[in-house]
C-alpha cells in the first residue's frame, strides 16, 4: 500500500520532469539560429522546396501545436532526422546504445567496488584513513580525460597490456542479441573473444569509474562513521552481537540508501562524461556519436542525446527512490 503510493507519486513526478525536459529541448531548438529547413534542403534550394519542407515538418503551425507534435513524436521515439547522417536519430542512437550501456555498466562496477573499498578503509582503518582521505580530495579534482590519457600511456604504450582503442580487436562487431560484445561472446561461449572485449573495457571504465568511486567513498565514509555512533548500534553491541554482525546488519544496511542516491545522480554524470571519454577511445557509443554531431552542428542528434540521457537519468533516480522505499520504511510521501 505504502509502496504503491510511493510508486504512483514518483511516476507522476517523473512524467512532469520528462515533459519539462521535452519543453526545454524544444525551446533550445527554437533559440537556435540554424534554420532546420535550410539544414535539410540546403542553402540554395528553391523557395517552393523550402516552403514544402517547412510544411512537411509542421513548422508553419502555431508554437503550441508544434510542441504537442514534438511530444507526440517523442512518445514513439521519433527524435527527428540527423543533418549529418541523413538517418533518423532514433536509428543512429539505437545502433550505438549497446556499446555505451556496456561501458556504463563497467564504469558503475568500478565505481561501486572502488567506492565500497575506499569508504570502508577510510571509515574503519586507523592506519589508512588519512591516505584514503587524501585520495578523496585529490581525485575529485582529476578529470576523467587525464586518467584516460595516463592509462593509455602506462597500460597501453609502456606496458602493452591493454588495447588503446575500440570495443573489440579485429572489429568483428557485436554478434548476438544484446549488442554488447562481452555479453554476446559469453552467450556464444566464446571465452577468448569475451576476454578480449573485457580488456578493451578496462582503461575507459577505470578512467570514468574512479570519480564515481571517490564520490561514493566519501558518502559511504560519512554514513558509516555516523552510523557507527547510533543508539541502535550501541544496543546491538550491548546485547552481545559480534562486531562483524553489528557492522553488516546494522551499520552497513542503513548506509545503503544514501549510496543509492549518489549512484542515481552519477548515472547522469557518467552519460554526460561519455561525450568526453568515448572519443578518446574510439568507442562506438552514444558519447562518440554525440561528439561527432557536435563537430558538425547536428542539432537534432544532440537533442536526441539530451532526451535519451535525461530520460535515463530521471528513470534511474525514480528507481532509486522506489528502492529506498523498499529497504527503508521511513521513506514515505511528504
Amino acid at each position, binding site marked *: 500500500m505504502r509502496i504503491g503510493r510511493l510508486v504512483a507519486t514518483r511516476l507522476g513526478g517523473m512524467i512532469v520532469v520528462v515533459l519539462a525536459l521535452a519543453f526545454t529541448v524544444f525551446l533550445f531548438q527554437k533559440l537556435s539560429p540554424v534554420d532546420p529547413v535550410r539544414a535539410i534542403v540546403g542553402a540554395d534550394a528553391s523557395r517552393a522546396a523550402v516552403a514544402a519542407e517547412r510544411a512537411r515538418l509542421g513548422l508553419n503551425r502555431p508554437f503550441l501545436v508544434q510542441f504537442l507534435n514534438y511530444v507526440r513524436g517523442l512518445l514513439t521515439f521519433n527524435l527527428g532526422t540527423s543533418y549529418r547522417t541523413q538517418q533518423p536519430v532514433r536509428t543512429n542512437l539505437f545502433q550505438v546504445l549497446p556499446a555505451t550501456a556496456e561501458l556504463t555498466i563497467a564504469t558503475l562496477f568500478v565505481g561501486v567496488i572502488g567506492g565500497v573499498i575506499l569508504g570502508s578503509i577510510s571509515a574503519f582503518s586507523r592506519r589508512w584513513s588519512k591516505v584514503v582521505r587524501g585520495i578523496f580530495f585529490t581525485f575529485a*579534482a582529476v578529470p576523467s580525460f587525464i586518467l584516460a590519457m595516463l592509462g593509455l600511456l602506462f597500460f597501453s604504450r609502456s606496458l602493452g597490456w591493454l588495447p588503446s582503442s575500440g570495443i573489440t580487436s579485429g572489429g568483428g562487431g557485436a554478434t548476438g542479441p544484446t549488442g554488447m560484445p562481452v555479453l554476446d561472446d559469453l552467450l556464444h561461449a566464446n571465452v577468448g573473444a569475451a576476454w578480449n572485449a573485457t580488456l578493451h573495457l578496462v582503461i575507459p571504465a577505470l578512467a570514468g569509474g574512479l570519480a564515481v568511486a571517490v564520490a561514493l567513498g566519501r558518502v559511504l565514509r560519512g554514513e558509516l562513521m555516523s552510523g557507527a555512533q547510533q543508539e541502535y548500534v550501541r544496543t546491538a553491541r550491548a546485547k552481545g552481537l559480534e562486531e562483524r554482525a553489528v557492522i553488516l546488519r546494522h551499520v552497513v544496511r542503513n548506509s545503503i540508501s544514501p549510496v543509492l542516491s549518489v549512484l542515481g545522480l552519477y548515472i547522469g554524470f557518467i552519460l554526460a562524461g561519455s561525450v568526453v571519454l568515448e572519443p578518446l577511445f574510439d568507442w562506438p557509443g552514444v558519447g562518440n556519436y554525440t561528439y561527432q554531431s557536435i563537430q558538425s552542428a547536428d542539432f537534432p542528434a544532440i537533442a536526441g542525446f539530451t532526451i535519451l540521457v535525461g530520460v535515463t537519468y530521471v528513470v534511474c533516480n525514480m528507481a532509486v527512490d522506489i528502492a529506498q522505499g523498499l529497504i527503508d520504511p521511513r521513506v514515505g510521501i511528504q
Partner: protein
Amino acid sequence: MAVADPWILEAAKRPATLTPPRLSKRLTSGRFIVVALGVVSLVVLLLPLLAPYSPTDPVGAGLLPPLSHGHLLGTDDIGRDLLSRILYGIRSSWFGTIAVLASALVIGTFIGVIAGLAGGVLDAALMRFSEIFLAMPAQVLAICLVAALGPSYIHVLIAVAVVWWPAYARLIRTGVRSVKVRPHVEAARLADISSARLAARHILPGVLGPPLVLASVDIGTVLLVLSGLSLIGLGAPAPAPELGAMVSEGFPFLLQAWWVPLIPGFAITVIVLIGMVLGDIMRGRIST
C-alpha cells in the same frame, strides 16, 4: 565533467535552520570569501604577463619536448609555445568560472528572494520550477543549449549559468524565510519601507553567507564543466588558448608527444585543485 558535490545537494535540500549563525559572523566570512577570490583573481589576471610568446602564433619548431631551450613546457604540433597558451588558458577558465558563479548567484538571489518574500502560490511555483531543473542532468542540458546557440565561449558561460542557478535560489529562499520572521525585519516593516529596500538592506545581508560558500565550493566543479565543454568542441573556435580544447587538439599526439595534451590537462587539474582547496577553506570557516 563532474556533478555537484553531495554536500551541495544536501545544502540545497536542507530545510530552514531555526538558528542561523550570527549575522556578524556571516558577514565576516562573506568578506573573507570576496577578499580571497579577489587575490586569486588578481594573480590569475596577471599570469599572461609571464607568457614569453604569443598564445596563438607558431613561434618555434613543432612538438618540442618540455625543458627545450626557450620553451619551458615545450611546443604543440604547429610550434605554439605551450606555456604561453596555458597561462592565457588559465585566465579564461578562471574568469569564465567566476562569471558563471556570479550569474548563478545573481539569478538565484533574485528568484530566491522573490519566492521567500512572496510565499504562497508564487513561492510554490518558483520552487517546483527549480526542482525540475535540479531533476535534469545539468551538463547535458548545457551541452544541448550551447549546441543550439552555436559554439562560442560566451554561449558556454550562458548555458552553464542557466543550468546552475537553482541550488542558489533554493538556498537564498530558505535563508529569506528564516530571516523574514526576525524582529529587525518586523521593525523595518513597521517603518513602512518598500519591499525592495527591505530585501536589499534588511534581509539580503543575513542570507548571502551560505550561497557564497556554496559558490566557492562550486569553483572546482564549474572549472571542470567548462573545460569539459571546451574539450568536446563547444568553446571558443580554434586558435583560442582554451585548456579543454588544447587537450582534445593535442590528443592525437598523445603517444608520440605526451606533453601536448597532458600538460594542459594537468593545468586544468591544478586550477581545479586550487579551486577546491579554496572552497574547502571557506566551508570550514562558515561551518565552525
